[in-house]
């Protein structure tokens, strides 16, 4: 059983990718640290793909990009990532959600007045940003720098996007596990509410000879008039504590 046999990339890269994914998965199983996972991701981009430095930027709740992991802790590299909180390809990739691939820094024509000179001074010639997507929204970006001239191969770009996608799933899986009880309670509350409301609608519909739409209006109207929660009132009706006929009649609109 070859877990990644379906990925059509070269054998050595396949092996390295598999190793990376196993490392990521290992982190998921044991004490999971998001920063660890993303650092693994950055390191492996450099090992596996033809890039000199890689880093992951994630959006903070306030919406600005922060460096969370980097393959290289050298100040000049970190600075390049940090600078992109304000300007640079990562910000652009994050803002429009599209990948930026094989962007030659010498051709950026003053688009990023601080970022470009710093990157060129660091010996980087091209930059690549791949979005980390969730619900059609971008939660961050994988940023890679290349010192050699020439384009990154398509297979490398695809492999990098694959790693970014897996890392995104890993982050989400982790967050879900941390909040499992609260989220499950929330889900159960929502599901139970739905059942109670539908049952109450059925009782009102039958007892008052109205359709389901009007039944729901009566339920909501009465809840509002008496400052009751909709679920609370629905429970009362469904379980028989509240007589559906006794609910406030709907006012006719003027």
């Amino acid at each position, binding site marked *: 059983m070859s877990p990644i046999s379906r990925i059509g990339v070269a054998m050595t890269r396949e092996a390295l990718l598999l190793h990376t994914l196993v490392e990521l998965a290992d982190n998921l199983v044991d004490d999971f640290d998001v920063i660890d996972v993303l650092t693994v991701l950055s390191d492996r981009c450099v090992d596996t793909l033809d890039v000199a430095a890689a880093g992951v930027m994630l959006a903070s709740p306030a919406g600005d990009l922060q460096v969370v992991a980097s393959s290289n802790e050298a100040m000049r590299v970190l600075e390049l990532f940090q600078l992109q909180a304000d300007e640079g390809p990562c910000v652009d990739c994050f803002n429009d959600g599209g990948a930026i691939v094989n962007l030659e820094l010498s051709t950026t024509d003053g688009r990023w007045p601080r970022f470009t000179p710093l990157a060129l001074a660091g010996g980087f010639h091209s930059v690549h940003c791949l979005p980390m997507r969730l619900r059609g929204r971008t939660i961050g970006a994988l940023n890679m720098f290349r010192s050699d001239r020439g384009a990154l191969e398509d297979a490398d770009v695809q492999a990098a996007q694959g790693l970014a996608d897996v890392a995104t799933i890993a982050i989400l899986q982790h967050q879900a596990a941390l909040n499992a009880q609260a989220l499950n309670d929330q*889900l159960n509350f929502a*599901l139970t509410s739905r059942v109670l409301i539908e049952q109450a609608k059925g009782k009102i519909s039958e007892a008052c000879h109205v359709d389901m739409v009007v039944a729901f209006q009566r339920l909501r109207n009465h809840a509002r008039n008496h400052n009751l929660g909709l679920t609370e009132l629905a429970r009362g009706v469904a379980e028989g504590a509240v007589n559906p006929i006794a609910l406030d009649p709907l006012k006719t609109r003027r």
Partner: protein
Amino acid sequence: MEERLTRILLLLSEGGEALPGPTRLCQVAAEVTAMDGAGLVLLSDGRFQGVLCGGDVVSETLAELEFALGEGPCLDAWALDGPVFEPDLASPFPYGRWPAFAPAGTDAGARAVFGFPVHVGAARLGAIGLYRDQTGPLGDEQHADALVMADVVARAILSLQAGAALGTVGAELATGANFQAVVHQASGMVSVQVGEGVGDALVRLRAHAYGTDCTITEVATEVVARRLRFDPLEGEETGGGVPLPGVR
């Protein structure tokens, strides 16, 4: 363990979505365990809360049967909080275990069924139902894959719920899900008709569906359309309309 998880995450990421929805989860669950289909149901307090994803026609039918009949592998997996195996659904034993589900499930095209609880720690969410159109046990490899898959599914469901407003089900979870609204509406109506609680009313709907060889959804639809009424007398239905499948 790591390799299994890796394989599953990789398959999920191929869907091109960072947050795979119930449909993709079911596809991968079936693929990774080499089954013919997988369905995903939500349960709480031992009660069926809805079918998140039928995955395929047979799985959809199996989930609906469990809901209608109140028995089957997903309900058992949830109740036991452990896996349930039925390698030969048509053999005598499952008929004793699930007297209504086993023959109906066989008719629907399943010859082997398996249920796995979906939980994260103490938070119990539901169950995955797997089926195959051939008899035979679940291999050790498949069993191990299914356990890891169930963990991944549990976390994925919670992730999908994470963005939802309080009191609502996450939009991606609700898409394509069947929360049996019409059945609960019909339970409310029948409860008034027969002067019993909604729980008893649901039992009446189930019994009627079983007795007339209809699905509970079909019976409920007839009730809500006011073509079928139940009366307080033991087990008798009155009023116009025969609850035929497909009649609207």
